């Protein structure tokens, strides 16, 4: 019975003949790696600081905006309804939920939106 030998085992065996002695690590490469590590860490620190500064700015700005009545102003901005009559007179109401209130805060009615048929 003949054994089926892979001819490539012999061919590739030629590539194995090179020395396999353990070689000592290169000190110049180790130095380059340490420099690269320090650079990477310094870049990461800069990025982290920039992100923290951005978050702090947003938090301070947001707090100041809320404290200065910004939230209320925003609500008004989005919750105002202006009705203009055919003679050009306009009346502004504020909208909270479905309720319409006049400038004095008194309820004047409810807003219902129905899709056009």
């Amino acid at each position, binding site marked *: 019975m003949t054994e089926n030998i892979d001819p490539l085992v012999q061919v590739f065996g030629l590539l194995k003949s090179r020395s396999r002695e353990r070689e000592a690590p290169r000190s110049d490469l180790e130095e380059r*790696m340490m420099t690269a590590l320090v650079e990477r860490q310094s870049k990461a620190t800069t990025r982290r600081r920039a992100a923290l500064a951005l978050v702090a700015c947003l938090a301070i700005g947001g707090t100041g905006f809320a404290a200065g009545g910004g939230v209320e102003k925003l609500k008004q901005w989005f919750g105002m309804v202006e009705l203009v009559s055919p003679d050009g007179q306009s009346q502004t109401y504020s909208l909270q939920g479905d309720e319409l209130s006049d400038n004095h805060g008194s309820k004047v009615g409810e807003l219902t939106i129905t899709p056009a048929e």
Partner: protein
Amino acid sequence: MESCAFSVGELPIAAREDEFALVERAKTEPAAMAELYRQHYAAIAGYVRRRIRDPHHSEDVIAEVFLAMVRYLPAYRNRGVPFRSWLYRLATTQISRWARRRRRWAKRQLDEIGEPADSATLENRPRLDSELVSLVLLSLPSRFQEVLHLYYVEDLSLAEIAQVLSKPMGTVKSRLSRGRKLMRVRLSAKGYLND
């Protein structure tokens, strides 16, 4: 076959935990990074030198592998794969990049070697040695080169190759089979192997 050039197989659990702790520390501590480098330098350098026979190019690629280790180490996660496999993956990627650039040159070199039918050039034909095998291997697409080298030269099992290349076993088997065929065809075409 010779004994394994390197082993990427299973480590004992304690050793694996120690290794993982060292890798985690190396992400931020230069001393741990240096330790990791010293532990793996010989294996990686040997692998690169066996694939890239040119000493000058080998040095460059070895440096690229370890600088890539510094760059990508923060992204390394322990998923049960030995750290060395991850390192071999980095090395294989860098070698393949180099091999793609050298492939055309290798093909030209092979073209200059006479065909068996050409009796005039046949006499001057070089004998089949490590340089020539390396040249034929380099003329193949890099996906076949890496599997053939890991299997035949580094003596890795198919499972270990799949781990190093981060590919399914089926892909590794298929590449090995197609790579073998291509290698045989190229060697037979030059009269070095009987088909």
